[in-house]
């Protein structure tokens, strides 16, 4: 947001990549892609690709972070230097530090951390290719990698971004829409429990639009949630659906 888009973002109700406002981009999922990790996943939302790895539960190190009666979840969201248009320095930015925090807090509610006192569960997220909606793609990838690792979870989490182009509320922003749109609202949901575990917003929204956005997020999450379950059942086989 900020600045003027080089191309119109919405023409005759269609978005720059031909989608209708409520269309999600094609989603791809693959689990068990990293032999060393306890669990791993590669998730694509269109051209956004995120790799997730889970290590643990393992002895929390350094020791002083360990808690006597519960486990600690740690999340590191990071963008590979070649994942963006301009090369990104590998040093963590303030943006990456904030996203690491909110992604952690989007996952904490579903993990039975109390089963792993003194331990840490470490989730590493690498954005390999960025085309908008990287944090919600990361949440879906992290959720899959956690499940792939066998760590007990209440349910899976799905990330979906909602945005605004002019007055139109749209689903799953690509980079152009993220950069030049009028609002961005990443949301993570635990579909079957109707929980919202991540919610942020930028731009300008009426209270009604926020309500609509939440509805759209849950609707878009449903097929992704099902795909997560299918992917975990058919471990190692790639999945791709268009929502």
């Amino acid at each position, binding site marked *: 947001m*900020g600045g003027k888009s080089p191309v119109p973002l919405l023409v005759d109700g269609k978005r720059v990549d031909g989608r209708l406002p409520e269309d999600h981009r094609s989603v791809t999922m693959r689990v068990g892609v990293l032999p060393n990790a306890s669990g791993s996943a590669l998730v694509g939302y269109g051209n956004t690709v995120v790799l997730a790895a889970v290590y643990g539960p393992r002895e929390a190190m350094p020791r002083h972070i360990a808690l006597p009666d519960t486990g600690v979840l740690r999340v590191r969201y990071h963008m590979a230097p070649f994942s963006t248009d301009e090369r990104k320095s590998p040093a963590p930015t303030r943006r990456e530090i904030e996203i690491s925090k909110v992604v952690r807090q989007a996952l904490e*509610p579903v993990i039975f951390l109390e089963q792993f006192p003194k331990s840490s569960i470490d989730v590493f997220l690498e954005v390999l290719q960025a085309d908008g909606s990287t944090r919600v793609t990361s949440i879906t990838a992290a959720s899959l990698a956690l499940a792939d690792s066998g760590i007990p979870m209440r349910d899976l989490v799905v990330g979906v971004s909602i945005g605004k182009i002019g007055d139109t509320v749209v689903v799953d922003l690509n980079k152009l829409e993220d950069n030049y749109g009028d609002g961005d609202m990443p949301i993570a949901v635990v579909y079957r429990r109707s929980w919202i575990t991540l*919610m942020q*917003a*930028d731009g300008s929204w*009426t*209270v009604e*639009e926020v*309500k609509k956005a939440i509805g759209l997020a*849950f609707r878009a999450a449903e097929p992704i949630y099902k795909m997560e379950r299918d992917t975990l059942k058919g471990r190692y086989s790639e999945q791709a659906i268009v929502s």
Partner: protein
Amino acid sequence: MSYPFEVIPSLRREALMRLISDGKRSDGRGLYDYRQIDIKVGLVRTADGSALASIGNTKVIAGVKFELGRPFEDTPGEGNLIVNLETPPLASPTFEPGPPDENAIELARVVDRAIRHSGFVDMSTLAIVQGKSVYALWVDVYVLNHDGNLMDASLLAAVAALATSQVPKSVIDGDVVKLDKSTKVPLSVNMDKMPLTVTFNKIGKYILADANVEEEVLSEGRFTVAFSGGDVVSIQKSSGFFTPLEVEDMMSRGLELSKSIRAKVVESLGNRPESFII
């Protein structure tokens, strides 16, 4: 990771939980009542704008400085807003010296986004030479005493400082741009769009506004909404989870609360103490 990691003695914790299970708070407030809000402006003479915001025992000071900068490539005709927020160790036994941690960074970024997306400050008035020279608008937020709800207090201090800040005149001499600090004009702000956050915490089955630090330790979920006029310009769900109904309820209540806070801010903008008190 989570902060402030104050340990509440278990007897105290039980007493607090018992109260809250009846929908009551330890200081007698209703669930959606804010503590006393107090704002003083213009304290810091070395700043181009400043404000001290207190919510109960929480105290946050903000200083605004205008310096010269180069515009960002995608906004050649606008000044640069940079929000920095520090949680120095004098403000709480749980704060440590060093660069901002994830909590301070999150607070800074929500303050930044709320200001940026509200249209409160007319950033186009901060361009000097199109594409070459602009004002860098530094907002330094400094926590002085942490008793919960740093989010709302930080934005309060920042907007009150901005609303009362003075821009030094820029002087263009050939290729060189300088600032003349002896001549200043008020920063152009749109008071109708002043952004304000309302932060909620969930304890047990209750959601309450403006938690103090004890309540924050007990909190199972935190949610912040920033309003500008009647619009939502920023949302930040932190810990825990919320249902869509809970979110909708916080939206409506937040909007109402933001109106009374706004009135409080507006009435405080003339509150310029003669001496520097905190």
